[in-house]
C-alpha cells in the first residue's frame, strides 16, 4: 500500500512560496550588481544607419551603453537573415538569436542597445535617450498575406497521406469544410524573464529564469567560447514559463556579455512589454479542415491543413496537425503543417503547442460534422473511436478515453442536452454545452537524478530540471520518500542547478515520467546497494533475496514477500562506516515503448452562459476527465488541470496579440490590452482521474498532464458557444463583438 504515491500532498515548497522566501532568478542578492535596461528598435525590417548614445551616457549613474558597434561577437554564428537550419530537438546546434550583433533589424522591437547603470532608474531613463536612425525595408508581418507561400518545414519528412483522402472526400456522402484561425498569443508568465550574471575569472555564474539549466549552459558556453563546465546556471524557482523559457532567450547572453565587459555582476530583467518580443509566442495559425463521413457518422476522409508563421531567420514548426493522425479511426487522411516567413521574432512552444491549436480546429470541425449529421457530438466521437493507433496500427500502451467520455457525460449530465442550438436557457442567458477530446504525448526522455540517503534516515534528492510550477519538488520528494521508505519531511529536494545531474528541460509534460523515473531508479539502486552490503554479512537475514523482492520502509530493508526478514539500514551503514550513501541514476525510455502507441487522453465538458444582448460569455462549469496513467499527486495534478482550463478559457475568449501591420509592431504588449483570465472569469472546474495501469510508458506508469488539461478546452468552449447561440465562431478569441 503506497504511503505517498497517489495521495494528496501539499507542496513541499509551499511555505517558501507563501512566505515570500522562495527566490526567483532576479532576486538573488549580489553585491555591486549593475542594472541593465534593454533598448528596443522601432522598425520591423531594415538596418540601423546611425546610433547615438552620447546623451544616454551622460546620465548620472550610467556605466556604459552597448550597441552593435561596441558589443563583442557572441556565439557560434552571429544572427543573419539566412535561413537557419531546422531546429526542434534541444540537442541540435544552437542558432538562437543573439542581440547586438549587427546593424540588421529582423523584427520590430528588436533589442538594439543595452544601457548599464548603477541603478534601475538611471538605466531605464537613459534607455529612452538612445537615438537611432534606420534605413527601413518593406516588411511582412501578416500571415494571411503570405499564406500562399507556405512551405513544408525542413524538419522531418513531408507528411504522407494515408489512403486516398481526396477521392474519399469526393465520395463522402456527408461533408463539412471550414477554416479556423488562431491569433498570435503570448505566454505571459507572471515572473518577467530576467538574469543576474557574474564572472569570476573565466567562470560564469548566472541566475536565470529558465526551464532548462543545461540547455542554457550550453548556449552560454558556445556564446562565449568557454567550456560548458565553466558556466553554472542557477534557477531554483521559476515564476511560470509555459514554454517561454525552453529556448535560451537573447537576454541571458546579453547580461553575461555586459558582466564580462564591465567585470562586475549585471542584472537584466525584461519589462512586461519586452516579453512580447523577447521569448517567442504561439504562432498565427490558419487551418482548413474538410471531414467526410458516412451517414452512420463513420469518418471516411480527413483533410486538415495548417499554416502558421515563423520568423525570417529561423524555422519554427509546432506540428499543429500532429495529433489529427491519431485521434480518430479514419482510413483516408492528409494532415500537413506548413510554415511561412514573417518579419517577426521567432515563435516558440507555448503550453500544449500545436496540440491545442490543431485540436481546436479538429474538434470544432467534429462538432460541425455532428450537426451536419444530426448525431450527438459525443456519440460521433465514440463512433470514430480509435481502438488502435490509426497512424501506426500499433496497440495503445493504455487508453481509457472511452471511459472518460462515458463518465464525463454522466458527471456533467450530458444526456439532458438538447441538440438544437439556442434551445437551453437560464433566465436571460443562453446556455450551451460543448465537448471536445484532449490528447497529448506520453513522452519520456533520458534523465538523471541523485539521492543521498543518510544513516539518520534523512535524504537529499537532486536533479537539474526546473520546477516552473507543476509541483516537481513535491513529486520528487514523494517518489523518494515512497521508495526509500522514509517520511516526506525527511526528504530535501534540490532542482534547477547545473551542479545537479542532467535532466531534460521542463516542458512537454515529461518531467514526472523522466525525472520521476530517475529518482525511482536512484532509490532502487540504493536498495540494491544496501542489499549487497547487508549480504556481505554471512548472517544476513536477507541472504538469497532477489533484488526485486526487497523494499525499504521506516529504516528497514526488508523482503517484500516476508517482511519479518529485514535488516536495519542504519546498522548496515554503520557496519560499513558509511554516514551516507549516494546513488546517481540515469533513466532512459525503455525499448518496449517502441512496440506501442503512447498517448495521454482526456475528455472535456463545458457549460457556457451567454448574454444574448451583450455577447459576454461565462464558462460556468467544466468537467475534465483525464486518462494519463498513474497520478502521483492528485492535488497538484488537479491544479494542473485547473490551470489548463484557465488557459483554455483565455485562448477561447480573450487572448490575442495584435499587430499593426503597417508598422509590423505589436500594439498590445501589456496586461491591460492583452487580456488573460482574472479570478472572476473562473467558475466550477472538476477533475476526475481515470487511472490507467500502464507499465509500458515508464516504471512509474505516469503520463504527462500539464498540457493535456488545456488541449480540448478552446474547442469545447467554442462548441458550447455555438450550442448556446447558433453562432459558429471560427476565429479566436470569441470576444463579445463577435456574438452580437
Amino acid at each position, binding site marked *: 500500500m503506497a504511503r505517498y504515491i497517489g495521495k494528496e500532498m501539499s507542496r513541499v515548497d509551499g511555505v517558501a512560496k507563501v512566505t515570500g522566501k522562495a527566490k526567483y532568478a532576479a532576486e538573488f542578492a549580489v553585491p555591486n550588481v549593475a542594472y541593465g535596461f534593454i533598448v528596443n528598435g522601432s522598425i520591423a525590417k531594415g538596418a540601423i544607419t546611425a546610433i547615438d548614445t552620447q546623451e544616454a551616457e551622460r546620465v548620472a549613474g550610467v556605466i556604459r551603453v552597448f550597441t552593435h558597434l561596441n558589443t563583442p561577437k557572441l556565439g557560434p554564428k552571429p544572427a543573419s537573415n539566412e535561413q537557419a537550419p531546422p531546429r526542434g530537438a534541444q540537442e541540435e546546434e544552437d542558432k538562437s538569436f543573439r542581440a547586438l550583433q549587427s546593424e540588421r533589424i529582423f523584427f520590430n522591437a528588436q533589442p538594439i542597445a543595452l544601457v548599464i547603470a548603477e541603478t534601475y532608474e538611471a538605466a531605464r531613463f537613459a534607455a529612452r535617450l538612445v537615438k537611432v536612425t534606420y534605413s527601413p525595408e518593406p516588411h511582412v508581418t501578416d500571415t494571411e498575406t503570405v499564406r500562399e507561400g507556405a512551405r513544408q518545414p525542413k524538419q522531418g519528412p513531408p507528411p504522407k497521406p494515408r489512403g486516398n483522402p481526396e477521392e474519399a472526400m469526393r465520395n463522402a456522402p456527408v461533408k463539412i469544410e471550414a477554416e479556423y484561425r488562431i491569433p498570435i498569443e503570448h505566454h505571459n508568465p507572471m515572473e518577467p524573464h530576467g538574469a543576474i550574471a557574474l564572472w569570476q575569472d573565466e567562470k560564469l555564474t548566472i541566475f536565470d529564469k529558465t526551464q532548462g539549466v543545461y540547455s542554457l549552459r550550453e548556449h552560454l558556453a558556445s556564446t562565449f567560447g568557454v567550456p560548458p563546465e565553466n558556466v553554472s546556471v542557477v534557477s531554483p524557482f521559476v515564476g511560470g514559463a509555459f514554454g517561454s523559457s525552453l529556448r535560451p532567450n537573447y537576454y541571458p547572453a546579453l547580461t553575461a556579455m555586459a558582466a564580462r565587459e564591465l567585470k562586475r555582476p549585471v542584472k537584466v530583467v525584461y519589462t512586461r512589454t519586452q516579453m512580447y518580443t523577447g521569448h517567442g509566442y504561439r504562432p498565427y495559425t490558419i487551418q482548413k479542415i474538410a471531414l467526410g463521413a458516412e451517414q452512420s457518422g463513420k469518418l471516411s476522409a480527413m483533410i486538415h491543413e495548417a499554416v502558421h508563421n515563423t520568423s525570417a531567420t529561423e524555422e519554427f514548426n509546432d506540428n499543429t496537425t500532429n495529433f489529427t493522425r491519431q485521434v480518430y479511426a479514419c482510413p483516408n487522411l492528409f494532415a500537413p503543417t506548413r510554415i511561412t516567413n514573417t518579419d517577426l521574432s521567432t515563435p516558440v512552444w507555448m503550453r500544449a503547442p500545436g496540440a491545442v491549436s490543431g485540436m481546436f480546429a479538429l474538434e470544432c470541425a467534429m462538432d460541425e460534422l455532428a450537426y451536419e449529421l444530426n448525431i450527438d457530438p459525443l456519440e460521433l466521437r465514440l463512433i470514430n473511436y480509435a481502438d488502435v493507433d490509426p497512424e501506426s496500427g500499433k496497440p495503445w500502451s493504455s487508453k481509457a478515453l472511452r471511459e472518460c467520455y462515458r463518465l464525463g457525460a454522466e458527471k456533467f449530465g450530458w444526456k439532458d442536452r438538447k441538440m438544437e442550438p439556442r434551445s437551453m436557457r437560464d433566465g436571460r442567458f443562453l446556455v450551451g454545452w460543448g465537448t471536445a477530446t484532449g490528447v497529448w504525448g506520453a513522452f519520456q526522455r533520458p534523465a538523471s537524478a541523485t539521492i543521498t540517503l543518510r544513516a539518520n534516515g534523512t535524504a537529499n534528492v537532486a536533479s537539474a530540471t526546473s520546477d516552473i510550477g507543476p509541483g516537481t519538488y513535491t513529486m520528487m520528494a514523494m517518489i523518494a520518500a515512497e521508495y526509500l521508505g522514509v517520511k516526506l519531511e525527511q526528504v530535501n529536494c534540490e532542482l534547477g542547478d547545473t551542479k545537479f545531474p542532467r535532466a531534460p528541460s521542463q516542458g512537454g509534460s515529461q518531467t514526472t515520467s523522466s525525472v520521476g523515473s530517475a529518482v525511482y531508479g536512484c532509490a532502487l539502486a540504493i536498495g540494491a546497494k544496501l542489499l549487497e552490503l547487508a549480504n556481505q554479512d554471512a548472517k544476513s537475514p536477507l541472504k538469497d533475496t532477489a533484488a526485486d523482492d526487497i523494499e525499504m520502509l521506516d529504516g528497514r530493508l526488508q523482503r517484500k514477500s516476508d517482511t519479518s526478514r529485514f535488516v536495519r539500514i542504519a546498522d548496515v551503514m554503520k557496519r560499513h562506516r558509511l554516514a551516507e550513501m549516494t546513488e546517481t541514476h540515469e533513466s532512459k525510455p525503455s525499448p518496449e515503448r517502441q512496440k506501442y502507441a503512447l498517448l495521454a487522453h482526456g475528455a472535456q465538458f463545458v457549460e457556457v452562459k451567454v448574454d444574448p444582448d451583450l455577447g459576454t460569455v461565462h464558462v460556468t462549469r467544466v468537467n475534465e476527465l483525464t486518462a494519463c496513467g498513474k497520478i502521483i499527486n492528485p492535488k497538484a495534478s488537479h491544479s494542473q488541470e485547473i490551470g489548463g482550463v484557465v488557459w483554455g478559457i483565455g485562448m477561447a475568449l480573450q487572448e490575442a496579440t495584435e499587430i499593426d501591420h503597417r508598422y509590423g509592431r505589436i500594439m498590445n504588449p501589456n496586461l*491591460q490590452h492583452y487580456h488573460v483570465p482574472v479570478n472572476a472569469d473562473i467558475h466550477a472546474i472538476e477533475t476526475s482521474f481515470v487511472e490507467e495501469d500502464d507499465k509500458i510508458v515508464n516504471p512509474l506508469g505516469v503520463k504527462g498532464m500539464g498540457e493535456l488539461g488545456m488541449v480540448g478546452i478552446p474547442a469545447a468552449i467554442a462548441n458550447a458557444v455555438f450550442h448556446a447561440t447558433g453562432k459558429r465562431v471560427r476565429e479566436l478569441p470569441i470576444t463579445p463583438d463577435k456574438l452580437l
Partner: protein
Amino acid sequence: MRPFKYTRATEPNGAAAAVGANPQAKFLAGGTNILDLMKEDVERPNELVDLTRLKLAEIKEAGGGVSIGALATNTDTANHPLIRQNYPLLTQAIVAGASGQLRNMATNGGNLLQRTRCQYFYDTAMPCNKREPGSGCGALEGLNRMHAILGWSDKCVATYPGDMANALLALDAVVRIKGADGVERTIPLSEFHRLPGDTPQQDTNLQHGELILAIELPKSNFAKNSYYLKVRDRASYAFALVAVAAAVELEAGAIKQARVVLGSVAHKPWRSQEAEAALAGKPASAESFGRAAEAAIADAKPLAHNAYKVELAKRAIVRALMRASKLA
C-alpha cells in the same frame, strides 16, 4: 522615467502655485495613472507636487447635495454611506473600474483626469497627436477596436476610458477648482472633458496649475432608479468596450426625467440629450428604451474595427435602462 523634483504640498494654495509656476510640473495624487505614463515616457514632468497630504479627502453634505474631496480615494467614495444611499449609481460606477488595490490608491481628482488607454498613445515609437501634436493619429487607420464612435476628429479617435465620470455626468456633478492664483471657480462636469477637435493633446478644460478641490453633487432624484452597466472583454479588471450610466425618475410608471451617459464611446463621457428627450414622459418599457437607444447612437460613425460598438451601445442602453427601472 525622467528625473523630477519631488515636493510634498501642505496646503492647496501652495500646491496650485507651485505647479502654476513651473510649466513642466504636475500634481501627484494616487499616482496610478501618472506614474505609469511616466515610466512609459509619455508624461515627462520635471517636478511632482504630492497632493496626498492635503486635507481634501472629506465627503460631506453640502448645499442639499454632497461634496466629495478630490483627494478622497475611489474606495472611500464608493463606500461612503452618503454616496451609497443617495448616489448608488456613483458607487456602482466606481467599483466597476480597475481593481481593489487601484481603487484604494486612485483619487477622485486623478480619476477624472486619467488619460486615454489608446495603444498608440502609450507607445512612444508610434505616431499620436495627443502625445505629440502633429505626429499623426496611429489609431485612425490602425487598430481601433477600443476607439470612439462619436464626436471624434481625424486628429484623434481616442476614448475617455474612465467609469466614475460617466456616473458623475449623469448626476449633474460640478467640479470645484482652485487656480494657481488661489482663485476658486467651478466647471460643470459636462464642460470638463473635451472633444478632440484639432487639439487632442488637451483632454479637459482645466488650465495648467488648476487644482481640483472637490466634486459637488446636487441633490438627486435618481437614487431609486439608476444602474451602471459596463461591458468588457473579461469579467473584471478591464476597461469598458461600452459603458452606460442610466438613471430615471419615475412617476406612476412614466418617466419624469432620465439620464443616459455612454462611456468609452467618445473622447469624453457622452451624455445623450437625444435619448433623454426621447424618454421624457414615456412609459418605462423596452420599447421606449429601444427608441431612446436609437436616438443616442443616431450620429455614430464607427471606424474600421469598432462597428460593433454601435449595436452594443444600443443594447447596453436598453439593458441599463431596464435594470434602472427594475424591469430586468
